[in-house]
């Protein structure tokens, strides 16, 4: 089977692809050791095999990238358990379609059905994942979402004003005091109609600190720092010694506004922006911030009412760098840096200059000394530029082409992804020598070590998050899956264990031990805690009420019927709200709700939950509805009828069950 793939191996894969193909071929002909391949030897399959009914060791939360969602996988198996809808409507469960969830996708630009999710980040206590929340940024229409790790639902989405693309986000500080947001594309602040060529005078890059309430997790934009108009691209907060700081990369220090592919790559060095967030907090508390009028949305799910609400915020606090000495410093960084990552102790900050032939690693200690010794190389709009030689700890030389991101293990090694050479390179902190490398299939972006951004990484695996798969899976037309690759890092040599397909683009991922979450997972919503204004708690309360041309159907569902299930008196031109409560109090027994011809959607309703479908019948007749989630042996019997009469008919509202 595989010799063919030797011919088809893309040129840039070169020797690795061919060796892999040979290895796989050998494996096929050797029954005695069919799992042994060039990829490392040993029984690779057994290292990722999770027996039926057994649990995986880790949860992996991978961004769905352009899907706007989050995929939840198990490691080491790579099995997909759930797609958490976040920034996009989700036909599987009515997210963004039901009346209760529509407000979550509202923005200052109106309702947005499809977003672009990038960086899932687990909430932390003392620099380690605490299992409470997962945050993720939306890049296109700048937002940050908070996912509840008990229900695996999105509970909150906050819009980031004054941003043209929220890429360097959400990356929390050591105790989740703040998340960050930025702007990859600097924009006029406030946004107005100006010539694009006036970039240098009119555009700015806003860096935001988003406060997180330690109990509820509720987010608020605490302050925006108005920075020079560079492209702020990636971020990582400090920890341990550097806990008061957070670091952003930026490119386009040329301040180009067209053909950035060439024009933003002129300077030998761009920058890392070091932000002392404690200082920013001090300036904020000292009243240095100005109020800036701007509208942005803050959407949150009211757990008790099971309904999302939108708050329209009308102003944000801003700080000007020139008014805030000691808060911001630029550190020169070779050629269009992308990733910036901090090692477990917080002392070393590694950057990925995506056009550079080295990985610069900065020392926090040297940075602090350079600041106090004023080893500056000029300043930009009031922000001192530190001398490169004064802050650099070492350079990993000739590691590969196109370094992007680094995560760390618990043994003093960094693992950096290389997009152009499609590989992961392992290097040693302190000596800066490359000790191992492994190819990825193909074109890796981010990579993830469980806890790899924390103080205590679980250095068992690194997961490569690949942009391109080409010939790695059964072809499915022009659109093929993107993938993750599980690589063992317990030994001296990295060892590829498993490829698995992902939803959308697995842009970035974070992983944590399964035991951190399994004990807290919600099984049902308790009916007695359901305070949805349209909930009905038992069948006897099921009813139909008309208010002008609005008809409210209060309906219950339980195996295996709706109550009521025969409804008459609805008319063409009515706006019908079906408020459906799932009376089940049993884990994993959701019911579906589907009305023939409904132009909006269907619903999927969890046990104890109430959801509302808005339906505007267009013609007279009898319309069936049914449960669309196979719930029980009598699932097919779970059905009903709604009679729709002419606009001028006098059929009275009536409803019944079983009579």
């Amino acid at each position, binding site marked *: 089977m595989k010799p063919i793939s030797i011919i088809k191996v893309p040129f840039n894969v070169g020797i690795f692809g061919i060796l892999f193909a040979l290895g796989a071929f050998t494996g096929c002909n050797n029954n005695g050791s069919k799992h042994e391949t060039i990829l490392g030897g040993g029984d690779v399959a057994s290292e990722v095999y999770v027996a039926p009914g057994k649990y995986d060791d880790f949860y992996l939360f991978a961004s769905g990238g352009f899907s706007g969602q989050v995929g939840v996988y198990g490691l080491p198996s790579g099995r997909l358990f759930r797609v958490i809808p976040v920034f996009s409507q989700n036909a599987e469960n009515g997210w963004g379609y039901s009346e209760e969830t529509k407000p979550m996708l509202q923005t200052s630009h109106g309702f947005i059905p499809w977003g672009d999710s990038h960086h899932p980040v687990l909430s932390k206590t003392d620099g380690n994942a605490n299992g409470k929340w997962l945050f993720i940024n939306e890049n296109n229409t700048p937002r940050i979402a908070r996912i509840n790790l008990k229900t695996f639902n999105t509970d909150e989405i906050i819009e980031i004003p004054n941003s043209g693309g929220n890429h360097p986000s959400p990356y929390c500080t050591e105790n989740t005091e703040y998340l960050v947001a930025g702007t990859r594309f600097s924009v006029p602040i406030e946004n107005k109609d100006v010539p694009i060529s006036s970039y240098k005078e009119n555009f700015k890059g806003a860096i935001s600190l988003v406060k997180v309430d330690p109990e509820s997790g509720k987010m608020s934009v605490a302050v925006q720092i108005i920075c020079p108009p560079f492209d702020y691209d990636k971020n990582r907060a400090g920890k341990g010694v550097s806990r008061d700081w957070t670091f952003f990369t930026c490119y386009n220090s040329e301040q180009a506004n067209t053909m950035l592919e060439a024009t933003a790559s002129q300077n030998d060095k761009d920058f890392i922006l070091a932000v002392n967030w404690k200082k920013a907090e001090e300036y904020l508390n000292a009243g240095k911030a100005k109020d800036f009028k701007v509208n942005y949305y803050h959407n949150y799910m009211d757990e008790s009412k099971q309904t999302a609400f939108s708050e329209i915020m009308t102003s944000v606090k801003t700080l000007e760098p020139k008014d805030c000495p000691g808060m911001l410093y630029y550190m020169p960084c070779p050629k269009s840096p992308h990733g910036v990552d901090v090692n477990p102790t917080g002392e070393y900050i590694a950057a990925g200059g995506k056009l550079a032939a080295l990985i610069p690693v900065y020392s926090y200690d040297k940075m602090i000394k350079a600041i106090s010794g004023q080893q500056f190389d000029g300043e930009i709009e009031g922000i001192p530029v530190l001398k490169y030689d004064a802050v650099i700890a070492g350079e990993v030389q000739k590691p590969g082409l196109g370094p992007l991101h680094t995560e760390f293990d618990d043994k003093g090694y960094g693992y950096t992804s290389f997009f152009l050479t499609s590989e992961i390179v392992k290097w040693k902190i302190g000596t800066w020598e490359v000790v191992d490398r492994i190819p990825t299939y193909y074109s890796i972006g981010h990579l993830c070590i469980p806890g790899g951004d924390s103080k205590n990484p679980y250095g068992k695996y690194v997961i490569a998050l690949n942009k391109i798969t080409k010939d790695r899976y059964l072809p499915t037309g022009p659109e093929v899956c993107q993938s993750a690759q599980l690589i063992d890092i317990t030994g001296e040599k990295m060892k590829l264990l498993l490829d698995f397909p992902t939803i959308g683009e697995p842009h970035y991922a974070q992983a944590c031990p399964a035991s951190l979450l399994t004990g807290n997972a919600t099984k049902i919503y308790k009916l007695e805690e359901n305070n949805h204004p349209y909930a009905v708690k038992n069948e006897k309360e099921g009813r139909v009420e008309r208010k002008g041309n609005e008809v409210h159907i209060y309906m219950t569902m339980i*195996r295996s019927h709706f109550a009521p299930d025969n409804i008459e008196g609805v008319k063409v031109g009515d706006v019908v709200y079906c408020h459906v409560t799932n009376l089940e109090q049993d884990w994993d027994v959701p019911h579906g709700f589907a009305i023939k011809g409904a132009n909006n959607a269907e619903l999927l309703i969890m046990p104890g939950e109430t959801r509302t479908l808005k339906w505007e019948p267009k013609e007279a007749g009898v319309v069936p509805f049914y449960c669309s989630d196979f719930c029980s042996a009598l699932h097919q019997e779970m059905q009903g009828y709604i009679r729709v009469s002419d606009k001028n008919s006098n059929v009275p509202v009536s409803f019944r069950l079983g009579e």
Partner: protein
Amino acid sequence: MNPENNIRYSRDCSGVDIQQKSRFNGLIFPVLTMMAILVIASCNQHQNQEANVEQAATAGAPLDGGSATIQDDVSMRNILQIAVSSADHSTLVTAVKAADYVDVLATAGPFTVFAPVNAAFDKLPAGTVEGLLKPEKKADLQNILEYHVIAGAYKPEYFRDGKAIGVANGGRVTIGVKDGKITVNGANIIGSVQGSNGWVHLIDQVLLPQ
């Protein structure tokens, strides 16, 4: 449970499957097919079934067992858990175990179970229950238990006087409703409990297939 039991159960299981298929014709076919599938499925895992029933309510590592072993102390109790937790139903639970229907009563259902209390079994001629619990009588025992189960969740107010309702063994039971008292084939319903996967109606006589 010793290995001998395991072998015997496996043989019985395949036998049950054939018998049930022959009875299915035209009667709530999908339900019984599903039950049959579940019975077949449970053949693979019954070796630790008794232990599993006891573990059902206790915390611990994930198990490879059937529906009865699912760890869940949050949801409403299912019919199996209701029966197991009732001191008045120890004979019924023993019979359900012997008939290999433990997992089935913990599945999605929906079921209505007419559950004879211990005193109801005591009314049977001496030796009847012991006889039915013998492995070679398993098919008879299953037939009797199936006669107590409706596929569908009937709460008390759904019952109508004189209504004959099809039950899982292919037969029918007749409901009586008089002066607010409900009977099934003449046995009195002396209490009703809602489970997550259906209803349990306590009855004072064992129903015998007609």
